[in-house]
């Protein structure tokens, strides 16, 4: 009995991997290209060989200096952190209100959040640019952080509310019985329970801001203010000689930490969105 089960699973394993093989090959292909180009010696980059003759790890250090990677990294960190902290500070109260109060306009607010989540910045980018230009805020990474904050608020409120709804009210009611006020209950009972959900939501907001392209491309016009995606794009756009090993090294460094974080936390994102959809 167990042996037939085992062979059954073995057979399934072989079939499953065979069927998935083409997709897996195509998925891994760009990562292989990125990594192998990043570690190739400069002279081999333009020759169409796959394997480098040696792994030139110093490419990363050269790239860091040659492309101004450090400044772009700082800009990206600043913009993403600002957007994340702001979006969380603004949406925790909103999500709490939506989870714990029934009020007129509740349905309308939820619809508004849903619609604003569907609207991509690209559709509004001309209007946003004029808004920022009118206030003299083009080039400002702080203003960019606020724009990201605003575009993420719908997502963060949505995610947080779906988690808040799963926390039983009994705990708060018990604290009220003990004579604790709303604020004290919130601080000592409710928020500690929500901390993991808040952390996960914050990380996804950070990744969204980290990866954003079109608004940054529009608002940031000089290299000192570029975020990482714009910096990497500027290395390939409209140039006759492209240092591809530098570009790939920069892409790899800019992508890897966030990709690992995302892969690790992806199931929480799905659960949060699913909870939100079921409500």
């Amino acid at each position, binding site marked *: 009995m167990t042996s037939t089960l085992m062979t059954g699973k073995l057979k399934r394993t072989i079939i499953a991997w065979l069927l*998935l093989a083409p997709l*897996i090959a195509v998925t891994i292909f760009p990562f292989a290209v990125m990594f192998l180009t990043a570690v190739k010696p400069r002279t081999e980059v333009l020759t169409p060989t796959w394997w480098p003759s040696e792994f030139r790890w110093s490419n990363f250090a050269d790239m860091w200096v040659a492309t101004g990677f450090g400044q772009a990294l700082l800009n990206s960190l600043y913009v993403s952190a600002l957007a994340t902290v702001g979006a969380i500070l603004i949406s925790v109260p909103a999500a709490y*209100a939506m989870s714990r109060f029934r009020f007129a306009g509740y349905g309308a607010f939820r619809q508004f959040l849903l619609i604003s989540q569907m609207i991509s910045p690209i559709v509004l980018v001309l209007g946003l640019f004029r808004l920022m230009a009118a206030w003299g805020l083009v080039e400002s990474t702080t203003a960019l952080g606020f724009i990201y904050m605003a575009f993420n608020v719908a997502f963060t409120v949505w995610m947080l509310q779906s988690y808040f709804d799963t926390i039983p009210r009994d705990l708060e009611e018990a604290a009220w019985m003990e004579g604790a006020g709303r604020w004290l209950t919130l601080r000592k009972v409710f928020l500690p329970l929500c901390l993991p959900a808040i952390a996960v939501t914050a990380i996804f907001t950070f990744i969204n801001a980290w990866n954003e*392209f079109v608004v940054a491309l529009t608002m940031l016009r000089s290299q000192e203010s570029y975020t990482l*995606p714009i910096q990497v794009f500027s290395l390939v756009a409209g140039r006759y000689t492209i240092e591809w090993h530098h*570009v790939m090294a920069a892409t790899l460094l800019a992508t890897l930490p966030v990709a690992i974080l995302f892969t690790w936390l992806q199931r929480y994102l799905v659960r949060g969105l*699913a909870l939100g959809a079921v409500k």
Partner: protein
Amino acid sequence: MQSRTLPYLLTLPSLFLAAVVIFWPVWDLAQISTHDVNRFGQLRDFSGLANFWALAADPDFMAALWRTGLWTVLVVGGALLLSIPVAMILNTDFYGRGLARVIIMLPWAVSLTMTAVVWRWALNGESGMLNSALMKLGIISQNIQWLASAETAFPMQVLIGILVTVPFTTTIFLGGLSSIPDDLYEAAALEGATLFQQFREITFPLLRPFINIAIVLNTIYVFNSFPIIWVMTQGGPANSTDILVTHLYKLAFRIGKLGEASAVSLVMFAILLVFTMIYVRLAMREQRT
């Protein structure tokens, strides 16, 4: 009294921020699109729908509109056709399933900009690693200039679009598949139903609501998707891979036709609202059942 105003006070900041960044630009775009406007953005006379008529008469806009439809249908459809079997395989129990899942989800973890930059290099005509891989495998005998003409560039962009859409779509379907009880399949197998019959009679109907939601959400995302096409070809050569978003960007920030660019934005805004309504309808139908 306090708890009556409290929820409004708590939601106000988020509403305010979202409104400034969404309503103000929409209002501004509506203003520009109905006025004569110079390339510095100064409004002159009211011109009614002249900018919209100019769009309808512009062959580049019509081509981009048509191509956006093609792009959206091909990417959403392709991702759907690929994701159903992938989700079904990942839903079965086999060795290394966790690893397979992580690999298939990888494209979701990388920003579209970076993905597009890597593919732009991989598809390079002289030194690109796709050409050298295909040559080594004996599939092609000479280098293909992938991005030099729309006939090869656009299909590649569609394929990359599909590849980056598969992880999200598969995730939705995995959620759907896990809600189907195993007993149903066991009962069907006892009755002598073939695997194909099981798929047609059990899997597909029960997956249907998830398929609907995946179609609507993906349509919205793909319709709006800018980085893949912009980074790889900037809509070129000669506007032959332009979709609405890249056409809009060129009108606004390259050519400086702000009136027409605003009109494109509003047309897209309207299309997105329709998609969103469909989504709300579908999601509400799910709630009731």
